[in-house]
């Protein structure tokens, strides 16, 4: 097994919520990400799945150090990112990039597609001549499926799918090794989603990229990921290679998520057994004691309220955090 590209160890991101005016005020701590660990290998796609408030986007940003960490380590090829000086970290940013959910909002409306795509390039290679920058930008546009002659157009003149391609071109122009994809297809039409997913998979194969693919859509994550991590209220519930996670989900939350996704087939969809969870997600500001999922879990017992189960090995590449993971499926 190759050495990991990125190694995340007991990562915690906490936010202080509440007004902190000139004269102070009440404060709460939101544990958006609470003790997440994983390794990411070169060329691998890790899917992050979970519902709103599970901390998946926060985790993605914290890995890129776009957010301050509470504690924990993110080690990039042996170097602890948290220890880098701001200037060193800026240098590091050419290696790791991000793609956003809202394609239009992630592009500056006052800049042309060419300027947007060129920005990371000219930031790191200010010595490049204009003609050379332009030539590289146009090559990149062709690579992501945009017409190179559209270089002077503005974001609002493109459709959502095309804007997402601009965002992808911006992310890969410095040939990074890691791209965090934060819900990159959720805002797109169904027919366009497939185009973008295929593009990302092609680019990965061509450039040897590692991807962290954040999505609430289990079907999309299953399609693109090698390994999948399921998060709930900032904690890892289950992490496993794709096939064993979908074929044999061990955590009751993963099982519920799986059965909640509507299948586009009327016969299967109407006949399938459903685990409909009770209630809503608890507020992340005031999470339940012990296992955060216990308030909605069909298997919860006394022990679940008392302590958070540890993430334990349950297969070759399968870890699960549940006191009752061994229980038979769907009681």
């Amino acid at each position, binding site marked *: 097994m190759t050495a990991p590209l990125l190694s995340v160890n007991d990562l915690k991101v906490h936010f202080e919520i509440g007004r902190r005016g000139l004269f102070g005020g009440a404060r709460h701590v939101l544990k958006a990400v609470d003790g997440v660990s994983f390794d990411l290998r070169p060329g691998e796609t890790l899917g992050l799945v979970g519902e*709103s408030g599970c901390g998946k986007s926060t985790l993605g940003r914290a890995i890129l150090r776009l957010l301050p960490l509470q504690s924990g380590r993110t080690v990039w090829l042996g170097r602890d990112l948290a220890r880098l000086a701001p200037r060193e970290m800026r240098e590091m940013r050419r290696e790791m990039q991000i793609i956003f959910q809202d394609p239009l909002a992630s592009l500056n409306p006052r800049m042309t597609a060419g300027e947007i795509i060129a920005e990371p390039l000219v930031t790191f290679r200010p010595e490049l001549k204009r003609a050379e920058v332009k030539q590289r930008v146009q090559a990149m546009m062709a690579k992501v499926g945009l017409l190179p002659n559209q270089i002077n157009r503005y974001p609002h003149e493109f459709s959502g*799918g*095309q804007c997402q391609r601009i965002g992808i071109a911006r992310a890969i122009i410095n040939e990074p090794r890691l791209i965090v994809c934060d819900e990159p297809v959720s805002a797109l039409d*169904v027919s366009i989603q497939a185009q973008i997913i295929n593009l990302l998979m092609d680019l990965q194969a061509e450039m040897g990229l590692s991807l962290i693919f954040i999505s*609430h859509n*289990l079907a999309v994550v299953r399609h693109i990921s090698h390994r999948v991590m399921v998060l709930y209220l900032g904690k890892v519930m289950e992490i496993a290679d794709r096939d064993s996670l979908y074929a044999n989900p061990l955590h009751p939350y993963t099982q519920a998520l799986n059965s909640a996704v509507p299948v*586009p087939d009327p016969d299967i969809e109407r006949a399938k057994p459903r685990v409909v*969870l009770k209630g*809503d*997600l608890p507020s992340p500001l005031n999470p339940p004691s012990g296992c955060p999922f216990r308030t909605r879990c069909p298997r919860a017992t006394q022990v679940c309220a008392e302590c958070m189960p540890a993430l334990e090995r349950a297969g070759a590449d399968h870890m699960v955090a549940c006191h009752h993971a061994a229980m038979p499926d769907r009681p």
Partner: protein
Amino acid sequence: MTTPQFSAMEPVLEVAGLNTLFATPEGDVRAVSDVAFAIARGETLGIVGESGSGKSQIFMSVMGLLARNGRASGSVRVTGTEILNAPVAELNRVRGARMSMIFQDPMTSLNPYLTVRRQMTEVLMTHKGLGEEAAAQASIEMLERVQIPEAGRRIGMYPHEFSGGMRQRVMIAMALLCGPELLIADEPTTALDVTVQAQILDLLMQLKRDTGMAIALITHDLGVIAGLADRVIVMYGGRIVEQAPVRDIFRRPQHPYTEGLLKSMPRLDEHGVTRLQTIGGQPPNLQNLPSGCAFRDRCAYAFDLCAAERPDLTSLGEGRARACHLPQLGEVA
């Protein structure tokens, strides 16, 4: 056109020759073109389409909720009464009472400054002439029916005090207050998390069974359609391109666009991962539709006739219709 199982009854909603235009500085934009369909009593009609397909604008026209620069022509009959462009007073007798609508974002139809109690009782007092106490009682019962725990206490709360899923339940409860014969649900679960979406879909299914009301379910998610709809209309570029009973849409789509949509979805039940099939190009720009068939520049099978002539929606029998020049397509494996 209705499916055999519902054909015996008079339709709840009958739309004919509906055209919706929006005046913009760049000229008129036609969001809905020559749309005709009917929804039978107790039937759930799924309306599928992507952004710009006109699927929502059909029902905004039906409800008389078009933006100020929009105007609709044609005919919309609710249980026999023509309501398109009817005076507001007349419209209000139908809206909320005989048909009501729920939206993707419940906050758009809930007033954030009023308690749920106030908003719900107001509906009952206007439409049904109930007294304050009776209205409150009926409202609480309705909240219980949509499975809101502690309805009696929660009715005094403000919309923002409910979670996303609960808010959607409140909106459904409000929509059902007067016992409408038709519920129009515009992307009712799109903004919700998967597990909460499953709850709301369950609720809608249960309500459909218990009340026998008709539902118009507008969505881009074919999975949601598969679970709930009896019949499906597929929209593209403001027109109906295919309509069929739900099984046929998924098993034997007859329009290349429907087929493409089905094949481009990653699925949880797929066996082994293959490359996704895609529909090339971009969603249609209503201001600049291609000549002939609006889908032709993204269609793998397009030929000369597709550019020259727009295919009409023609019946294929068995409650099916499509707008395509191709010979009939085969079965999806």
